[in-house]
Structure formats: structure tokens, C-alpha cells
């Protein structure tokens, strides 16, 4: 029938499927619809005009051809509209969809300092045994720092090359260990020691020694002191307590080893080694292949320490230990340089300190 139709309409009919496919959205489709089947000026409108003007004998055939074309166009348009509407709906759905793999807003996360964290942990470990925390000032008297601890008058640690002194107060110094907290606490509780049933406490804190700053030395560092005074306290109680605490800290298979040593404020004195927690005592770089790491110094209280505080060493006895917090932190974390703990780089703090 094409010969009955004007050639440009035939051409338009042929181009229709492609034009329909090219409509990317509903607006384009609407424009296409107007061009083909619109009420005025469209191909369909022109065909209707043509039909009206056609000779009578052609009308039937022409009419059939025109209707065929119109129907084809209308069906095509409708199908495409459904398609495009579905696509739009789909996009809307996608736009409102949440992609859980996108980085979400995360609440800021800070950290406790690793040294504080370790000290907190030690306090936690000793709490079930009835230890509380005693604290003392960092600016101390010579008497508390040295004399009360049976440290001889002429001990080299007293020299200004080893200990910081205050200019305006010659009798004051920066404590060189947490042991003066022993002296202060014993002096305080001495009158009520029997009523209390002895005393047991930890003393965590900062201490100062005149060391130049290098990878293994710092003029300020931390110690945790432990002390217990009671009746008939002996080395077995020191060993029992430390075994409990170090197992709580490093795991139930941890072994401890006491070796004789000397500190003026204890007698007998000892160094305490712990089976290397990093290699399960198999031997590694940290324990230098020995399977043991030195962890603290300890001993039974020297009678002079009790006597100084006004406590009768004939009735009371006790033990004390002191450990270096940085040393333990470096061992556990294998941090190569002590200065990192005082540099306070946020990356270090976040990685080493944590929050629990």
C-alpha cells in the first residue's frame, strides 16, 4: 500500500522503531508521540487529512494502511512508555537505596596512654587480693625518699648527679622511686595497724632520675610499687602473690623465678623473672633465648624500714616489690624506643593505648 502514501511518511514509518529506541526518557518519548500521533501536525494527522481527500475507491485500502501504521505507532509508544516508566521507578529506588559499603560516619575514637593502661591493669590484677591504691607526691623529702628506706647517708643515688633537687628547698627532691609511698603509708597507718589487720597496697606513679634522654633512658618514668605488712609474712607469701598476679597478667601457664638480689630496703631481696610471655619460654629475641624475662625487684621488708615507721619488726613483717612500667610496656609491645612513650604521637597513642 506504500505507493498510496507520501514518500516522507513512508520514510517516517521506517524510521519509527529507531526513533522509539532512541527516546532515553519520558520527555523525549512525549515529543516523539506528538510528531507521530499528535492531534495536529503529526504524521497521523496528515494521513487523516490525506484519507479525507482520497478518491472513494482508494479509501478502503488507504484507510487500512493508515490504521495499520497508527496502531503500530501507538503500540510502540505505549510499550516504550511502560519501559521508561519502569526504568525511572528503578532509578528512584536506587537513589534512595543505602549502600552499606560506603564509609559511614564513625564516632571519634581516642585512647588511654599505654603506660596508664598498663598501670590500671596491674591495679585490677591485685584488687581481688585486697590491695588498694596509695599515692604520694612527686616532690618528696630526702627523709621519705632515702632515710626511711634504710638507704645509707652516703649512698651514691643521693648525689646531685643522680637525683633532682629543688633550688629553693634543699631538703626536697623529685622522688627517685615510688618507695617513699611505702614510708608515708606505713607512718600513717602505724598507730592503727593492729586494728586494720596489716596493710596491703599498690603505689603506681611517676618518678624521676637524672638520666639523659635516649632510647632506653628517660629522666621521668613510671613505677608500680606493691607492699604488704602482716603477721608472719615470709618469702612464700611474696612468691605466692607474684605468681598469682603475673599469671593473671600473662596467662595461667606463666612460671616465675626468684633470684637473690640486693636492695637496701629489703632483706632477703630478689629479682623476679617471668617465663617469656612472647614466646611461651621457647626462647626469642626479647628473652635473649633464655625463656625468662626480668620483670621486677622485691623482697621482705628490712626491719629498719618498719622501725623507721614506728612498727615493731618483732611483731610485723612484710614484703615489697617495685616494677618499671616502661620496661614492662616495652617488653610486651616490643617498642624499640622509650622516647615514643613521651612523644605522644596520636598514631602511637591510638595504636598502643586503646580504650578498654
Amino acid at each position, binding site marked *: 500500500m506504500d505507493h498510496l502514501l507520501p514518500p516522507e511518511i513512508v520514510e517516517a514509518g521506517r524510521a519509527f522503531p529507531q526513533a522509539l529506541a532512541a527516546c532515553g526518557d519520558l520527555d523525549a518519548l512525549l515529543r516523539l508521540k506528538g510528531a507521530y500521533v499528535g492531534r495536529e501536525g503529526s504524521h497521523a494527522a496528515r494521513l487523516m487529512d490525506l484519507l479525507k481527500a482520497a478518491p472513494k475507491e482508494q479509501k478502503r485500502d488507504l484507510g487500512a494502511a493508515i490504521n495499520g501504521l497508527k496502531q503500530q505507532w501507538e503500540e510502540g509508544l505505549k510499550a516504550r512508555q511502560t519501559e521508561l516508566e519502569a526504568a525511572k521507578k528503578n532509578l528512584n529506588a536506587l537513589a534512595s537505596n543505602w549502600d552499606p559499603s560506603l564509609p559511614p560516619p564513625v564516632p571519634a575514637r581516642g585512647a588511654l596512654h599505654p603506660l596508664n593502661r598498663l598501670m590500671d591493669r596491674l591495679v585490677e590484677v591485685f584488687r581481688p587480693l585486697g590491695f588498694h591504691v596509695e599515692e604520694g607526691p612527686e616532690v618528696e623529702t630526702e627523709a621519705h625518699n632515702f632515710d626511711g628506706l634504710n638507704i645509707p647517708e652516703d649512698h651514691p643515688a643521693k648525689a646531685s648527679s643522680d637525683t633532682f633537687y*629543688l633550688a629553693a628547698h634543699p631538703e626536697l627532691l623529685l622522688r627517685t622511686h615510688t618507695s617513699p609511698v611505702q614510708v608515708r603509708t606505713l607512718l600513717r597507718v602505724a598507730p592503727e595497724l593492729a586494728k586494720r589487720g596489716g596493710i596491703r597496697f599498690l603505689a603506681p606513679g611517676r618518678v624521676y632520675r637524672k638520666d639523659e634522654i635516649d632510647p632506653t633512658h628517660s629522666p621521668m618514668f613510671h613505677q608500680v610499687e606493691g607492699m604488704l605488712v*602482716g603477721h*608472719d609474712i615470709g618469702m*612464700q607469701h611474696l*612468691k*605466692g*602473690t607474684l605468681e598469682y598476679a603475673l599469671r593473671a597478667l600473662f596467662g595461667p601457664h606463666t612460671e616465675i623465678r626468684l633470684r637473690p638480689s640486693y636492695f637496701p630496703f629489703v632483706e632477703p631481696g630478689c629479682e623476679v623473672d617471668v617465663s617469656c610471655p612472647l614466646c611461651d619460654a621457647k626462647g626469642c629475641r626479647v628473652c635473649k633465648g633464655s625463656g625468662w624475662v626480668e620483670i621486677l625487684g622485691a623482697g*621482705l621488708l628490712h626491719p629498719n624500714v618498719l622501725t623507721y615507721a614506728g612498727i615493731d619488726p618483732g611483731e610485723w613483717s612484710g614484703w615489697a616489690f617495685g616494677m618499671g612500667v616502661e620496661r614492662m610496656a616495652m617488653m610486651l609491645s616490643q617498642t624499640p624506643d622509650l622516647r615514643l612513650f*613521651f612523644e605522644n604521637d596520636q598514631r602511637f597513642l591510638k595504636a598502643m*593505648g586503646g580504650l578498654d
Partner: protein
Amino acid sequence: MWIERKALAAEIPAAKALDTRQLCELLAALGFPVDGVASREGGDVLDVDITANRGDAMSHRGMAREVAAKLRQPLTPLAPPPVTEGAPKVEVRLESPACPLYATALLSLGKGTTPPEAQAFLRALESSPKCLPAVDASNELLLRYGHPTHAFDADRIRGAVSVRWAIAGEKLVTLDGVTRTLTAQDLVIADEAGPIALAGVMGGDGTKVTEATRRVLLESAWFDPKTVRATARRHSLHTDASHRFGRGADPAMAAVARDLLVDRLQAWAGATLEGAWTAGSLPAPVAPVRLPEALLACVAGEPLPLAEAAETLRRLGCTVDVHPSLLVIQPPTWRHDLTIPADMAEEVLRLRGYEHIPSVLPPLEGPPVPLAADYLQRQAVARRLAHLGFHQTVTYGFISPEADVAYAAAGNAPEGRTLVNPLGQEYSVMRGTLLSSLKAVAEQNLRQATREIRLFEVAPIYVSSSQGPMERFTLGLVWGGTLGGEDYLSPARPVREADLSGIARDLGLASAPQVRSLGEGLFGFETPVSELPPAGARIIPAFRPFSRFPAVERDLSLLVDLGQSYETLASAMRDALPADVLQDLRCVDVFRHKSLPEGRQAWLMRVRFQADRTLVGTEVDGWMATALAAAESLGAKLRA
């Protein structure tokens, strides 16, 4: 101290079977840990750590004594050919109780030098041989037997020798070539022309043995440890001799060491003995120590048979009388550290081995003590801030005077907090503020291109007082950099002062601390920890009733002057409203824009009402009008 395995083994035949590793373990178990092992002169040398109380152990003989006691083996007898003493060839006068005993001998030297094995022994212990037999033999004896001796060039000594206190201001050139100005507390060996040696510390340069020396006067004495320590410290002259005498030498070794030295000089240098004599006598023995059976059992953690303990102590050289439930112990002349019963108990346990001590938890004799409130408060604030995204720092307690004065309180005089011997000026003042330290840490982090700085420290600051610096636990906090912008929902913006006020409010500070600008977009505040709310005394606070009727919220947009104080306006509005229904009034937005009238800004005020009944719209309208009127009285206008 370096210990040659071979030389130690020579003192105790049983130790010859011990290899280096076994020896190290044995020494560690006895309280002498080995810090390292080196191979020198064809044998192992051990770097043994000897504690300050054990001067007696600072020699091969001393170490061997310990090992022999542990292994229950005898020591090789120490028996030099006896030297017959006669009349003094040079008068020796002991003028101070700090030197009760002075054994000496006069020898003329022949030909000969230090034998190779003695040189090798010295080299192995990092002591270089001088090839002067008198010097090398003295050094070798010191390292082997632990008793310091000295040889003077006898021909350079003028007249009698005395051991006396120096006269203040007297001078002595010591062997190291340094001229020492002496004090009246320095003990010296002197001839009639003046001091020739610092007793127990170092000889004098003027009488030292040289290649030209023909005759030597030997010294093998005993000096008071305290005197030697003081002199060594006073002159910063810490020598092998001062270490031994300072920790207590064995007075009974004085004559023996002299005899050994004579024997070596005869053997090594063909010396001829002209005479040997001793001035003074052995110091009186110390009082015996009484060790009750009960004390030993208490220290050891279990009853130990007294006979066994006595046998152990005898192996260490003690003389022991066993009484019923008591040991009376006379320590040997070389053990100055054994003075109280606990010392003796330690010796018994040490030889027995600490591994035999039982492990027992101490029984509770009284109720445990709770943790102190101020300690818990510091722990709590640190945890809170860590959860709010802040990093806890630990910085030194001393800072530079400049850093201190920048933020310390004006009345807190730094003079009362200054160290007399700081590591350096930058570490000289006990800080009166935490902000300087935190600022330095923050700047260091900024240099590492850290986007956002969130730091805090809980530490004491120091406040000068007539009694010395008083410590006040303080919280310091620094915040700066860029907030947000790290995800698709949080816009980036710089940290502002108000952010720090928000933290202060979160912590429950009663009054807002002064937020200070620290430069580079950093802000900080500090507050005494005591200002923070204490942990509640009640486990759960007392119940306060609250309304279950719905609340009504209204916004009011106000145009106010740019200089208007928010607190003034807000309290005026609050005061105008009935307190029983006003639940909250706050500014929720500040708008500043050129579209607003010049000199004005817009505040969006949100007001929340609630009562124990349902509120009626008209009454709320009335209150809002009242609130607006209060605002208008301060120059505010309703924003159209």
C-alpha cells in the same frame, strides 16, 4: 665485673667440670647474674653483675667462694710462702682510726718482667699490662683475690710514712696526672714532705713505680669503707681499689695479699726482700648475729632444721654455734653485709636455692580498703575523654621557664618550683600548667600532618608555697584542626572554642573554664580535677518526678545586635517565663549575613514547655509573647 672462667675454676677444682653456661646459671641462682660472655685470650670471660653489698665477691676468689659453697666443694688453699716479719725499715705511723692495719714490705727489684700468662689474664679482664711487675702484680692480685695493694717507689719516699687525715688545702698529684686539692676528711698516705697517695683510692704521681724504680715499698692495708667512699665521691675518682675498699675489704687479707705480692715480685722481677712488717692490727670482730629458728621458718615459709642451716652458713665461712631454737653466728671477716638475723636467713635460703621457697597466698587479716574517690575520679575522667575521642598524653613534669610563664597562674612564682640541677634549662621548672606541654605535643602532631588534634593529660601541676611545691591534679585538654569531612555525611569544619566549652559541659564542670587560643587553630583549657563532679555517693541518685504529658516546642527567630550577650538575653527571657512550665530555652542557630540589617544577627531560639497537664495552644502563645517582649526590652526584634 669481668670474671675469667678458667681463673675461677683454678680456685675450685670442682668447677673445672662446669661449662660456661652451667657456671652462668649457677652464678645467677646465687645472686650474680651474668650480663654477657666474651671470648678473650683463648677462654670465656663472664660479665658478672655484682650488687653493691657484695664487695667480697668482686674477685675470682670471691666468686669461687660462692660457687664452692653452693657445690659443697673446697677451695684451693691460699698459701703463699710465708714472709717473716721483722723490724720496720721505714717507720709507718697510723694516725687515724680509718686505717687500723697496714702491712708492708721493702724489696729491691732485680731483672725480669710480667710473665705472659699474667699479661694474658690482665688483658682478658680489660686491664692492660704495664710490664712493670710491681704494678701488674698488684693489679693481678686485685682481680684474682680482691684485695687492693699498692707499690711505691721506695727511693722517692722521704722519711717516715704516716696514714693521716689530709690538711685542708694540701695538694696531691694522683697517678692520673690530676692535681687534687684535699680536705680534712680525705685520708692520705704521707711521707715527711706531704701526701703520697689518697688512701684506698689512688697512688700519687711523685712516688709511682717506673722503669727506673730500683726499690719498692708495698702497701696492703685496710681502710674504713665510708672514708674511702666519701673521698672517691669528693674527687670523682672511682677506681677498682676504691670500689673494693668502699664496699668493705677483708682485713684478714691484708697480710696475705702482701705476702702474695712479695712472692710474685720475687718470681717475676728477681726481687730481694729487705724487710716486711705490719703496723696496727686487725679491727675487732663484729658482734655475732643471733638467728632464731622461728624467724628462719617465717622467712623461709617452712621450718628448716637448724643443723642444716648451720652447715650452710659454715660453708660460707661463718662460725656457728647451734643452740636450742637459735643459731649464734659469727660472720667471716670478708662478709661486712651480714649484720642482722634476716641477712643470715637470706644466706640459708640463697644457698639452698630460691626455687625451694613454697608459693602461698598471704591470708587476709583485715577487710580490704576501697579505692580512693579522687583516684577513681581521675580514672573516670580519663576514660570519659578517651571515649569522647581524646588521646591521653604523658609528658614530663618539668618544662622551660618560658613555657611555664606562658600559661601558669600569675601568682604561682616559678622560683619555688625550680630545680637546682636540671638536665637543661628546658627541663628546669616543675610546671605550673599542663597547656604548654600539650601545646608542644599538639604542634609536633600537626607537623606530622595530623588532621585533627585531640589530646588530654591528667597530671599534677605544682603550686609554689613556703613548704615547697604543692601538687594539684589537673586536667588539660587541647583540641584543634579540622573536624569532620571524613565521610559523606559529616561536613568538614575547623574546631572552634565552642567545641571545647561543649567538652567542659559534658564533663560536668560547674563553671566554664577559660578556653585559650594556642595558635595554629589549636584551643585548650585546663581545670583542677577537684572542680570535676565527684563520683556520686549514692549508687543510684534519688528519684525526681518528671511529667508524662506532651511537651510543646516553639521557635522564635530574633534579630539582635551583633554585640548582644547571649547569656543576658537568654536569662531575661527565662526570667519572664513561668519556671514550672519552662523546660528549656536555647539558641539553636546563629545566622549572620549581609541580607540582614547592618549590625544585626539572627538567633533562632527554641523554647520547650511541659507541665503536669496538657498545655493549651493559647497559653503557649501568651508565654511566647511574654518571651518576645523580654527580648525586645533588650533591643531584639522578631525577624520577619
